[in-house]
């Protein structure tokens, strides 16, 4: 079977808004190293042009031919292929990624979330790492949703292995996977409040008393950020 690119992959969209970093320590505490005065804006890379004529281009074209508008943005960076898929197209795209002979991504190895608080309107990125045994290829599918509407369709129907991975992403980031058979907490206790791996969630937010010494709450500590 030969792979044919019937539609060019549209490379549109923009990178997530640049997060700003200032200093190493909590705001307002003088940093004796002098590093605290520096303000840096860092942008996620937009990537390089796809290697032309190779599989990276062909499979993108194949997916777009099967599911129109499935790929909003392509990033080819450090030898890894990332597709940003609109969440409305995710379920259809995933089913085709698994079943189409040219694509055949049988293994959904990992699903996890990343919280970009500065990426307005797309604060949460859900990242799927797919692998094709047949073609020995990897691709990363990235879906974004906003903090106000943290919904992403579940892909458990296509990849049963996604079950626990989606539960963990819900547990840690609060992303709701619509259509998941039982979206409950998996690592944190059932009655836990909050989603610990969100950026605004402090490290060590629980008051701990050990042999009479009390660890101060996070906002009263001079600590790492």
């Amino acid at each position, binding site marked *: 079977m030969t792979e044919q690119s019937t539609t060019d992959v549209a490379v549109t969209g923009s990178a997530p808004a640049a997060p700003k970093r200032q200093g190493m320590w909590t705001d307002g505490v003088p940093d004796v190293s002098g590093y605290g005065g520096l303000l840096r804006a860092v942008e996620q890379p937009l990537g390089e042009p796809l290697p032309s004529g190779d599989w990276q281009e062909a499979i993108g074209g194949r997916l777009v031919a099967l599911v129109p508008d499935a790929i909003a943005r392509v990033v080819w960076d450090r030898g890894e292929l990332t597709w940003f898929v609109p969440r409305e197209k995710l379920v259809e795209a995933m089913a085709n990624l698994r079943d189409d002979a040219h694509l055949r991504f049988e293994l959904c190895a990992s699903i*996890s979330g990343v919280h970009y608080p500065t990426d307005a309107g797309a604060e949460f990125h859900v990242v799927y790492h797919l692998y094709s045994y047949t073609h020995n290829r990897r691709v990363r599918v990235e879906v974004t949703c906003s903090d106000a509407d943290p919904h992403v369709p579940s892909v458990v129907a296509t990849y049963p292995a996604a079950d626990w991975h989606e539960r963990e992403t819900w547990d840690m980031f609060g992303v709701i996977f619509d259509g998941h058979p039982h979206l409950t907490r998996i690592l944190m206790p059932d009655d836990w409040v909050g989603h610990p791996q969100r950026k605004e969630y402090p490290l060590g937010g629980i008051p701990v008393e050990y042999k009479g010494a009390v660890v101060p709450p996070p906002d009263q500590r001079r600590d790492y950020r």
Partner: protein
Amino acid sequence: MSYDLFAGANEKPADRVYTPMDSGDWDAIAREQAQRADETLVINMGPQHPATHGVLRLILECDGETVTSIRPGIGFLHTGIEKNMEFRNWAQGSAFVTRMDYVAPLFNEAVYCMAVERLLGIEDKIPERANIIRVLMMELNRISNHLVAIGTTGNELGATTVMMSGFREREMILDFFEAVSGLRMNHAYIRPGGVAVDLPENGLTQLRDLIAWLEKYMPEMSLLVQENPIFKGRTVGVGVQDLTACMALGVTGPILRSAGYAFDLRKAQPYCGYETYDFDVCTWDTADCYGRYRVRLAELWESLKIVKQCADRLEATTGQPVRYEDAKISSPADLTVGPDGQGNSNEHIKHIMGESMEALIHHFKTVTEGFTVPAGQAYVAIESPKGELGCHVVSDGGTRPFRVHVRDPGFNHLQSVPLMCEGGMISDVIMAVASIDPVMGGVDR
């Protein structure tokens, strides 16, 4: 009639609840159940059950001795390692990931460091000797991991001898790890840019001794279990998971290979120079617990084959660098293994404290602030003893990871427990879970 302390506020209480306080032993429970003529029994196995490999909780619904429904519960060893790593610099991350799957710590370190190296763009610039040492340590770790997997299974069958045998050989490997890295476990030995420290002066001699020891004593393992009628009686045809199920549930590693698919990331997508080593991918065709042990037993010898090749290559590359040339990244500065473990070498302390102000500043900056990593994301996957171990790392260009996620094979594989156990006996649950070889430190992270 007992009070149902497990029922929620709006739930109908169960009509009989057995607790350790009110009933004597299993015989008494069985007698009472027989009188009640109600065969359905809900059993809470774990999280403190010795046969659950740490703190795994299994909720079993049984009809007599037959398991009709099983639900694994995890999270009892969740330590927030991924969150913690966002608050420490890139080099310190190595010391965190090593504590995830603590039976195979060097794989966690390797996959994390390789992901960081991909972000730094220095994947191709890792010195050859560093890669040989990485392969050596990983393969020895694979042997020690498989020995624990088989040994603890024997223990769960009531055969303590198998465990003692496995742990004895493992201890020899850990002694070698201690000589090299300063620590038996949780080494933090593989660092971004290479490895922390070269082999000690007598390291190669120790390695040759270790290989000789393993060649002499490792056959004991297969003698104990391979044709053992009790072992076979408990594992043959138990916990079957065929290739279709493996594919659907994303199962990799020995479980996939026991279903007959010769898939190994070391061959499919080689890293650390695995393409230059001579070894075979071991498979079995029964897709049951017994097949998984046969795959592991065979892999012991394949790994030893690689270890021998590493020993020869290490001899040939003596004196070559083991860290990336840029001293900013291969942090912290010169380490050595002293009598009290890994630490700064005396020469380095003398240099920074007595000879060079610049070296002191550099050391301070490297250790406290660390190095920056260009923004972007990377996913690296390697073949750990349990399956595909992946690490997704995101950088925002700072000195600390923006996000680290580790795809632990055990986390994924525990999902297949219901598939392997439902319809079987309670005793088969123990074997099925043991054949997955889950380590809860890695599963819960």
